[in-house]
Structures are given as C-alpha cells and as structure tokens.
C-alpha cells in the first residue's frame, strides 16, 4: 500500500494552492456577499488548465488524473467553495459524460471548447418534481422532421446562468420509464432556451444556480448523447463521478475551516494565553483533524478507484456522505472556536459553515448516498 501522491499530483497541489491563495481567496468574501459569479477567476481557470483537467490533451484538456482533479477541487474549495463547485460541475458533470459517451464528432464539437475553457458547462437533470426521484422527468424531447424538440423546465442547475453548453436529460419515451430518458447536448444562446429564476442561496453564493426553461428548443439530431433511452444510465454514472468532486469540495471546505481555527486559536488570547492552550479546544481540533483526514482518505481512495478503472460507485457515495457531513460538523465547530467573531463575516468560517451544508444535499443527498452504500452492501 502506498499513500504517497505522485510527483505530478504534488505539483498540482502546489499550483492550485498558490493560485487559490493569490487569486481566489481575495475574492471569496466579496463573491459571497454580492452573490456574484467570479467571471474573472473562471477566465484564469482556463489559462491554467482547470477547465479540462481530466480530458486528454488530444481533446484540448490537461490530461490530469482523477486524484489530481480531486486535489484541485479540494484546494480551491479550501478558500472558496463556490469556485470549487464551478470547477466540479464543469469537469465532472459536463465534460465527463461527453468524454465517456460522446461520439468523435461530439467530442470535437462540444468537448474541445469546454476542455480548453472557451465554454463553460453545466448538467441539467433536476426538475421541480424530479429531485432525488430523478426518474420522474417531465421535460420531454420529440423528433420532428429530423430535429429534436425540447420542452420543459430544469431547476437548481449549477453554472446554469453562466454556462454555454449543457448536458440535459429529457423523456423521449415516457412509457419506458427510466429507459425512456435520453441525454442531449444543448448550447446557448438558442431560440426556445431561456434562463429562468436565479436562486438566492444560503451558501456557495458565487456559483450560479439557475432555472432553465426550454420551450420548443430545436436541436439537431446529433445533439443526442449516447443512445436513445440511455439517459438515465448516463445521468447516474455521471453522478457517481460527480460525487467525488463534491466530496473533494466538502473536504476542502472542512480543511479550510480547520486551518482558520488553528490560526485563530493561536492568535486569540483569553485568560492571558492563546486559547489554543485550552485543552477543551485542543481536543475539539483533534477531532476535527481526524475527521478531515478520514474524509481525505475516502475521497482520494474513490478517485483512485475511478482512475484505475475499478468500480467506484459505492466508494464515491461513501466519500461524499462522510466528507459532506464532516464539512458541516467541522465548520460548525470552527465557528464555535471563533466565538462571537466566528459568527460575523469578518472571519471566513461563517461563510464556510453556510457553504458546507449544500454538500450534504446536491448531487445526491446524504440519504441517497446511504441508499447507494446500503444497496451495494446488501446486494
């Protein structure tokens, strides 16, 4: 067994940490306070290869492995969870299904501009009546004169209001249930495609979470990703991988809150000494550190399984389940360690606490993760 990261992965961490500290961290509080999408950061992400991390160089990507990718999302989320999810949704949810299921033509046409960062991607599955029960898709696509016509509404779409290319799921044959769902590649702008409500959120406020409205949007026949009726499988396998991204995001948030706590408790003095000398707080931080490390092992292990071609559905679910609940637990304690200051926006831990919660909800709630894990256990 070897817990050593590769030299490439080590340098990726060094790169992302430097980039995050200097470019992302200074904007984190502002994009949160203003609910602003950090477009300037996204432009930089493209320059340094974060927009096509796991895409081979032959398609304009960076050719990195899954562990390096998890490290990148972790390090970005350590200072700004919103930036972490922008990268995660783009890479895991938009690029990956195109890479995995796209035809050569689709890869050239859709994947390449996403990988080299000319375009931003999103993944549109959730609907008002199809959340955890993704099979209840209302959006439908019908063939009309050799073109697909897409009608319906998607909600809570990460990068929704900012993306150029979307992987959208729709019913093509309602009678077949989940086997009647198909995946499409949709580009914006296009007649019949509008951005609806942009959500006001508790956390990750720098990310754009939007409603997508399709009203007779006409798509060329080759906008179909994979085979007709394969959509549900595409969605589920994509989410298996996406969970590693979200788990890495949660890990980063927790690590960031822990780092802030260590720094603060060393500086803050009460009763004539730094509060870090209080054993009650030392023990609290020991527990935080232990859980963060446990998350890290689960996250990297899931990424390693995926990178090495092993099954990773259960591993990804466990990583996301544990890392996200740890993020909530650790950030809440970080606020406690900061006392009254932690409750103010002068310190980043209150933002981290708000950001952490979503990791237990999106790309499968903790309850869904438990379903996946128990199903694998009891099959």
């Amino acid at each position, binding site marked *: 067994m070897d817990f050593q990261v590769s*030299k*490439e992965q080590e*340098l*990726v961490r*060094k*790169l992302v940490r*430097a*980039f995050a500290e200097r470019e992302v961290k200074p904007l984190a509080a502002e994009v949160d306070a203003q609910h602003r999408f950090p477009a300037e950061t996204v432009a930089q992400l493209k*320059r*340094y*290869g*974060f927009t096509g*991390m796991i895409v081979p*160089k032959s398609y304009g*990507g*960076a*050719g*990195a492995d899954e562990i*390096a990718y998890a490290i*990148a999302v972790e390090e970005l989320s350590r200072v700004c969870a919103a930036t972490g999810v922008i990268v995660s949704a783009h890479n895991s949810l938009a690029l990956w299904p195109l890479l995995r299921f796209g035809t050569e033509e689709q890869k050239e046409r859709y994947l390449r501009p996403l990988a080299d960062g000319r375009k931003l991607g999103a993944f549109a599955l959730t609907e008002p009546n199809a959340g955890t029960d993704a099979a209840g898709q209302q959006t439908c696509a019908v063939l009309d004169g050799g073109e697909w016509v897409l009608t319906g509404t998607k909600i809570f779409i990460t990068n929704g209001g900012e993306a150029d290319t979307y992987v959208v799921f729709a019913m093509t044959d309602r009678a077949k249930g989940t086997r009647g769902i198909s995946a499409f590649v949709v580009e914006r702008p296009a007649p019949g495609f509008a951005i609806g409500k942009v959500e006001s959120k508790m956390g990750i406020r720098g990310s754009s979470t939007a409603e997508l409205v399709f009203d007779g949007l006409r798509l060329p026949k080759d906008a179909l990703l994979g085979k007709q009726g394969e959509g549900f499988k595409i969605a589920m396998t994509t989410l298996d991988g996406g969970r590693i991204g979200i788990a890495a995001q949660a890990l980063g948030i927790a690590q960031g809150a822990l780092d802030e706590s260590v720094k603060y408790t060393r500086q803050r003095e009460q009763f004539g000494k730094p509060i870090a000398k209080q054993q009650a707080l030392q023990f609290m931080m020991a527990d935080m550190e232990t859980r963060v490390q446990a998350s890290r092992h689960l996250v990297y292990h899931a990424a390693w399984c995926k990178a090495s071609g092993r099954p990773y559905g259960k591993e990804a679910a466990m990583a996301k389940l544990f890392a996200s609940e740890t993020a909530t637990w650790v950030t809440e304690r970080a606020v406690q360690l900061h006392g009254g200051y932690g409750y103010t926006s002068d310190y980043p831990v209150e933002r981290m606490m708000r950001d952490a919660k979503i990791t237990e909800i999106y790309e499968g709630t903790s309850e869904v993760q438990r379903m996946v894990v128990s199903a694998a256990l009891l099959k």
Partner: protein
Amino acid sequence: MKIIVCVKQVPDTNEVRIDPVKGTLVREGVPSILNPDDKHALEAALRFKDADPAARIVVLSMGPPQAEEALRECLAMGADEAILLSDRAFAGADTWATSNTLAAALRKIGDYDLVFAGRQAIDGDTAQVGPQLAERLGIPQVTYVQRIERRDGKLTVERQLEDGHEVIEVGLPCLLTAIKELNEPRYMSVGGIYDAFGEKTVAVWGLKDLGVSPDQVGLEASLTQVQRSFTPEPKGQAVRLSGTAAEMAEALVGSLAHRHVI
C-alpha cells in the same frame, strides 16, 4: 531564438526563524522554492516564446539532485528543456566558481541568443552570478531589468536605478537579470505539469560532461572563504506597556515626547 534561463532552488528564507532560546536557525518546515527573481526571469523568457512559438527555452541550474524539483516547475510553466549541473565537485562554489561552471554549460549548449538570470538569490543575496557569467561568456549584461522590448533584432530595456531608471539598447546575445518589477510570473499549468514529467526531460550534467578541470569548479575554484559565522546579538528587554489601547498609546507618546524623540 534560443533563450537560456539560469535558475536556483533556494530555501524560503522568509520562513526561517531563529530559535529565541538557542539562537540557532530553525530549519524545520522551511520549504525549498524556485528563487523569486528567477521566476521573473523565466516569465520574461516565456513572453518571448508567447510572441514567437518557435523560440526555445532551456532552463539551467546548478545544485544538488533535489534541485530537479525546481526545474520541473520551470518546465510546468512552459520551458522546453532543463539541465541540472550536479556533481559533488561543484559543491561549495562561491559566485566566481558558480559562474565558471554555468559558463561551461552555456558553451556546451551553444547558439544562445539571450541569457536570463534573476537579479539575486534569496539565500545569498549577492547579485554576482549574473554579471560574472556574462563576463565569462564575453557578452554584454544589463542588470535590474524592469522592462524589455525587442526592436529590429536588438533589445531596448529599462534598467532600474534607485531613483528612476535608464533606457538601454543592447544587441544579442546578451545577459539580462530580472527583478520583480519586470513582470508577473505565470503559474504552472495543469497540462504543463503533466508535460514536465512526460515528454520533457531534465538532463543532469556532471563535471565530465562539461569538460572542465576540477580546479575550475566548486570549492577548488572559489576565491572567497567564510572565516566565521554567527547570529546577531539580541537587545535587552523592552519596556512593556500595559492597559487599554488608549492608555498604552498615551504612555508611549508621553515617553517619546519626554525623551524628545518626537
């Protein structure tokens, strides 16, 4: 166009502390980094390559085998190839011996149009290797470069002075030493990192590869020697003021005014 960039891996002296009790250096946890000024030198070279993709950038360093890490970073930023001069015979070199060794490597590389170096390395802060290398190579130098323009096969550069700058025209080949004001270095890129460990290589050259005699490098060739080193003495105890911010401020202002310092 062939550009050579001389770089050094250094301990991050910003991270070094002195143990207040023992008066010794605390080395633990001090990371090794690519020398900051050298990063600006590499960035300057990369901008030539941005403008002219046919340009080739070779990064050159002298140091222990671990210095390869710094060279991989340079490759990940976009340099084309890297050469590490590493040999026990090179150890203990002063700037005279270092520039001798680098010059031998540059002659072996040959056909360079431009040589870049950082102004100085943060572990020694001498700023001597650049000019001494230029002298060994017999090419002109401009140090403290804060701006570069290429015009009709010549360079127009700004050299920083304490109270302004001078604009200097210099032909190729020449050696320029870069300062912080020259540019904002790019980061490595993810793809660049994978290239740095993939298609790109770090060649290691020893004494034999350079074809110079052992008395021209390292300790043997150094003209200066350290006689003694010591840590500066700390001062006596300070007057510690107490109370609220306002009370401490008043006590300080009163004391300073009383002593006619203000």
